[in-house]
């Protein structure tokens, strides 16, 4: 039976594969980049699946479990972006970020107990969280891109468009995640939108990214302002993801806080 204790072996194998993939992308060895990155993904996904089976529920409830998915989706998003636009740096970036999240899970794992409260036992649970995690991964990529471009003096139009592409993909997934959440909420709580703190912050984050894409359409816009907007949006996203667990306004009022039970 695979448990949390075995994570380190899967983690090391996956990260090694991804490092080779990232190196291969830089060296323009496309086939090698694809193969190793996908192998790393398979390794990590087999751990997630094993956890799913041994926990007898999808591993999506605690922060540690969502981080597991996040470290899976970052290289997945990386390889999709790589196959679509052939940015040679993207796999290095996704590997580093996935590595950070894997390290957090290795050094600060959160209790992975078996219980899953009835409110979370739904076919909506997995798609809702997985789609969101994927959105967070892609939007994380766009935020790093924004920082990178802000440090450089003058971003090229192609680099700004690359950032736009990431935001469009991320926002599309975020929209789906949010609307799946609404459809689920109707089945679970009787209403599709109750302005629960998590929902309020989901709306904030969603609108923030909408500002970015609308501002970028404005012919007279300032690219640097747009990039700053992207960084602010990502900060808001962090509040929505885990920050609200610490906000006095939502502690004790949000029905979305599950990990403390």
């Amino acid at each position, binding site marked *: 039976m695979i448990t949390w204790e075995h994570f380190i072996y899967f983690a090391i194998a996956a990260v090694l594969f991804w490092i080779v993939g990232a190196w291969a992308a830089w060296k323009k060895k496309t086939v090698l980049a694809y193969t190793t990155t996908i192998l790393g993904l398979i390794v990590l996904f087999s751990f997630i699946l094993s956890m799913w089976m041994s926990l007898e529920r999808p591993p999506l409830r605690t922060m540690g479990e969502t981080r597991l998915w996040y470290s899976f989706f970052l290289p997945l998003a990386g390889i999709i972006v790589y196959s679509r636009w052939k940015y040679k740096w993207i796999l290095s970036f996704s590997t580093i970020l996935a590595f950070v999240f894997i390290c957090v899970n290795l050094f600060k794992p959160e209790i992975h107990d078996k219980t899953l409260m009835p409110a979370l036992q739904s076919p909506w649970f997995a798609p809702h969280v997985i789609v969101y995690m994927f959105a967070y991964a892609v939007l994380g990529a766009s935020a790093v891109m924004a920082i990178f471009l802000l440090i450089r003096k003058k971003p090229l139009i192609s680099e700004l468009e690359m950032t736009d592409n990431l935001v469009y993909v991320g*926002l599309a997934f975020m929209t789906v995640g949010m609307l799946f959440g609404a459809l689920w909420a109707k089945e679970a709580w009787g209403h599709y939108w109750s302005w629960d*703190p998590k929902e309020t912050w989901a709306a904030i984050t969603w609108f923030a990214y909408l500002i970015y894409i609308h501002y970028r359409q404005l012919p007279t816009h300032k690219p640097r302002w747009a990039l700053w907007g992207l960084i602010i949006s990502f900060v808001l996203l962090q509040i929505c993801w885990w920050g609200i667990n610490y906000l006095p306004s939502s502690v004790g009022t949000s029905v979305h806080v599950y990990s403390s039970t």
Partner: protein
Amino acid sequence: MKKGFLIGGGIIIIGLILELIVGPVKWEAFAWPVNGIVLVGFLTIILALFLLRKKIPAFRFIGTYQAAIPTLTYAVVLTIIMGLTKQTSDGTWLNSMLTFWPFVLIYVYMAVILGMVILRRHDIPFLLNHFGLFLAMTTATLGNADMQRLMMITNVGEIEWRALNQNGEVREMSLTVELKRFIMETYDDGSPKRFASEIQILTKSGKRIETTVDVNKPVEVEGWKIYQYGYDTQMGAMSQTSILELVRDPWLPAVYTGIYMMLAGAVCMFIFGNKKKNVNRKLSNCKSQ
């Protein structure tokens, strides 16, 4: 954009004045048929603004990015304030943001902008996103007053036809519910794994339905959705009482149409991404030359 921020600021000031004069927004006053009339009036205003846009430049401005971006910014700021303050029924204006005029008016203005751009643009992904949001937002807000959420406390072996509304008043239902059995399963640590109610429903039209209501699996009967809400927590697994929630939301099909449109719009956004980028590129090239 300055103009857009000034207009948004003006709307917030008007909202504050309204809050001072008439007090918080009374959403319960929008119950049918008022919400239907308001919706028709609202759509008429948008159509009038759209038709007069060539004659009156101020109306034309409403459908521009310069109007939309500041409005979205105000909406985000007000919603952040809402996210940072505890939302309670008593307290300051900021503690009940949903009835706070500046918040409501900014969102209404956003709906007006959406309405204007929907009438102007005709490509399908654009319409799915914008019309979907417009439809979901307006019908969810206006329909809220017609939504009924009632609690029904049922005891094993007893037929119940009364339910409590959110103000604690007793309502007589058009259906009866008899709790046959309350089901409770727990994990090893005692936390609930499943709780559900085996019930028999009898409707006014004489239909008899035997079913089980689980958390996450509501049952739909004649426009009502019946949810497993709670049980006698002191008795735990031995509970002979089950609390059901009965929900009716006649505007739900309209809201769901909007939600499905937005879902389709998100799929389009993923596939096509930013279609206008070539236009942008040309514009930036023109500027730099």
